[in-house]
């Protein structure tokens, strides 16, 4: 299934784009991260520090993601 992945912070630089459509085998945040890390191998090292959001909320690694959903990958935050 396809999802629309948004990259923030240093992940955007690592992915080479701010967003893209990706085919994922498993419709969960873990499945999205699997697909992202397979395509962008440099993101793999940071995987454990990435939070996943759908809409304006974080979602659990096992949450079900809908077909076509926009999934945001959020690296460690540094506001202020």
């Amino acid at each position, binding site marked *: 299934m396809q999802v629309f992945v*948004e990259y*923030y*912070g*240093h992940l955007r*630089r690592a992915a080479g784009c701010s967003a893209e459509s990706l085919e994922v085998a498993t419709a969960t*945040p873990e499945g999205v991260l699997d697909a992202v890390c397979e395509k962008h191998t440099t993101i793999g090292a940071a995987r454990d*520090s*990435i*939070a*996943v*959001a*759908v*809409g*304006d*909320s*974080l*979602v*659990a*690694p*096992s*949450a*079900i993601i809908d077909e076509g959903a926009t999934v*945001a990958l*959020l*690296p*460690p*935050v*540094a*506001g*202020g």
Partner: protein
Amino acid sequence: MSEGSERWVTEDVLSLDALLQETEDPACGALAVFGGAVRNYNDGRSVSGMRYEAHTAMAARVLREVEEEMLARFDIARARIIHRVGSLKLGEMSVYVVVRAGHRGPAFDAGRWGIDELKRRVPVWKEEFYVEGDSEFVPGVPLKQPPIGDESSFADNNTTKES
């Protein structure tokens, strides 16, 4: 920017005067303001500017929640937080936390708590530009993901309770 989010996250130059006017309260004898500005150095390097980006919808929601939690946790009357995004020059303000209270103690405490929570919970990132022409993203704090098995969203669970 999503509709309404600009109350908390904005590309515009921040106006402290507007926040002070918005929070005016004749019952408050104390006003505490924290402001964050772009500094000209970091980690031994000379900084020429900063670019802030946010997950706007989530950042606005979390900032609104932090304001509400400040009002619930501390004996204060007003709390406002606003964060700027985009490219900022040296010395420009990136964030304000404004608190009004009857007395200075809770005003200071709430302001400190508010900016600490912002740094821990709000999805904002900063890319630091150096005088040599290169740039780096400033290392940050990982957001707390909901536990495995929790299939609900995680709108509020990043909150910690004060002891």
